[in-house]
């Protein structure tokens, strides 16, 4: 494990909202190619962790390094450019845009031609648009959404909207992809498909994946390592088996039944 390079490294990352310490001195490392789970009860600070990593909030203290460079407090767009992209717990697509356009917005980050070519509609901009669209179409194939490329994204059923968010994030060509409760609201079949897709994202596309999920079967069956948060604090870290039998985790989150 140790020969794989560290992709993301949180060191005592902390954020405070007024009197509430939403994330308290959280420390963990992600290695290249990890399939890493972040779990914990409601309000534990999982989403806030994502927000710290992606620059939505600036950490009050501690450091967050991505590929060795500090990202804590950088602008979200800058962090996306460096290679971290995410999905949102409460879906945030661009509702009036088509499915394809949503993905092209993600792909646009890696565009090369200048905007002046676009104002004048010159061949470089046209060709680039075509190739971005083509890449986006390929991603839609992967996510099994190609047949809906032309519909308004707001018109998609819930499960497909979640998949579209993943496609959009993938389009930014990230090294690390953060998925915030990707399976929420899906039926068992959809969950199974999603599991396969996430695995494919890691194995085939070589991405490092960090995901938040409340469905324990989903997490345990998918992730190789897991961090557990409770009240902003990290209470356990390890393999699914170790987490399952950790008394602190059972008390704070899993309950006796599992």
């Amino acid at each position, binding site marked *: 494990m140790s020969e794989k390079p560290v992709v993301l490294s949180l060191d005592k990352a902390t954020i405070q909202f007024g009197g509430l310490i939403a994330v308290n001195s959280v420390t963990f490392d992600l290695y290249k190619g990890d399939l890493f789970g972040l779990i914990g009860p409601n309000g534990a600070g999982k*989403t806030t962790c994502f*927000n710290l990593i992606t620059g*939505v909030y600036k950490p009050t203290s501690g450091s967050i390094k991505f590929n060795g460079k500090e990202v804590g407090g950088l602008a979200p767009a800058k962090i996306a450019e460096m290679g971290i992209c995410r999905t*949102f717990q409460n879906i945030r697509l661009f509702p009036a845009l088509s499915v394809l356009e949503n993905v092209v917005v993600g792909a646009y980050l890696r565009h090369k031609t200048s905007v002046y070519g676009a104002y004048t509609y010159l061949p470089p901009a046209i060709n680039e648009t075509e190739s971005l669209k083509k890449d986006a179409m390929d991603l839609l194939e992967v996510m099994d959404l190609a047949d809906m490329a032309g519909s308004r994204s707001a018109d998609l059923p819930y499960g497909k909207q979640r998949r579209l968010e993943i496609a959009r994030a993938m389009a930014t060509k990230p090294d690390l992809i953060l998925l915030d409760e990707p399976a929420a609201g899906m039926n068992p079949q959809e969950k199974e498909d999603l599991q396969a897709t996430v695995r494919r994202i890691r194995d085939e596309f070589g991405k490092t994946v960090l995901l938040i999920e409340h469905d324990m079967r989903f997490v345990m069956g998918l992730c190789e390592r897991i961090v557990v948060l409770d009240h902003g604090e990290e209470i356990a870290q390890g393999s699914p088996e170790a987490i399952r039998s950790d008394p602190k985790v059972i008390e704070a989150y899993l309950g006796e039944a599992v």
Partner: protein
Amino acid sequence: MLHDTLNLVAGLDFSILPQQLVNGLLLGSVYALIALGYTMVYGVLRLINFAHGEVFMLGSYAALFTSWSLGFSPEALAGQDKPSSWINLVLMLVVSMVVCGLIGMAIEFLAYRPMRNQPRIASLITAIGVSLFIQYAGGLFLPQSPPPAISEQVNPYRNEKVTVTLAPPPQDLVVQAKDARAKADQMDKAYEAAKAKGDPTSLESMRQETQAAKNAASNLETQVASKSTGLTVPYGQLGMLLTTLVLMALLWFIVQKTKTGRAMRAVAHDFDSAALMGVNVGRIITITFVIGSALAGAGAMMYATVLRTPLTPFLGVTPGVKAFVAAVLGGIGNIPGAVLGGILMGIVETLVVWLDGVVPGLSGYKDAVAFVVLIAVLLFRPGGLLGSSKVEKV
């Protein structure tokens, strides 16, 4: 002494500052009354009711017509004095408030209610349309050239006022003035006596000397007056402030203590949840419009009667915009914020005119200052003074 130094340093007349502040407060209370309507409607509907300034305009015309029908029209008065009573003022206030309340209700029912589920920008354009419609349709039917004003005579207390002295004039000046007046009086007496006696030789020169002494005395007296810091508030303006306070207290009571008020706050907090919890949202919106418009009506009546502004169908535009700015300044949707913003706006405006003493030409920027203050405040507090800028949770 202090006055002189300050005046020299800043080129400002501090003796009129308290008076200016009171004037600002008065103007500000009108702005606050209008701003309340903007803020309440925004609170429940998230709609900038651009037609609110026009409701205000119609309110001032309602007051005008009431005064006419009470016998204070130019034709009825025909240049003669006519006694009035406070009842007339109350009648005008009530009519103005009722008319505005009804107009507000009608606007809501005809123009905004059908737009309830439409994009907000569409409602906004409708509001602009209603505003323009009232202005120009008013232009067809309302008397406007020359702009009519409510007769002074409606106000029975127009000559009464309260005078407050804040800082007395320098003592030596007062003594000097007193002496001069006494001397003039003495000379006057001597002159009258001489006139009665019919002593023609020195009469003309005596008359001239007396006149000179009188002039000197009144000169000194004017100086005393200008060196003393104080303020004069006519009863009408005092009544205006009191009425505003009473109305605001009433509004506070309605919003905080009644069931309707609670429903209003619920709708403002979360429209959909309130509806789901069984609040009759339609009724609450109507009530909000009625109350907000009635307050504008009260402001309009006082604006037209006490400040005696000439009326035109476009009268509502400027106070309307300023009151709207005041509402945003205080934090739109926030009721105390509207009052604070309105009063601040009025005071800032009069202060700018006062500062004209140091920066000549500044008063030309009077109308711009409202916006400068607003932009400055919003850049530091994006939600206004008392409003909370909601941080969107991601």
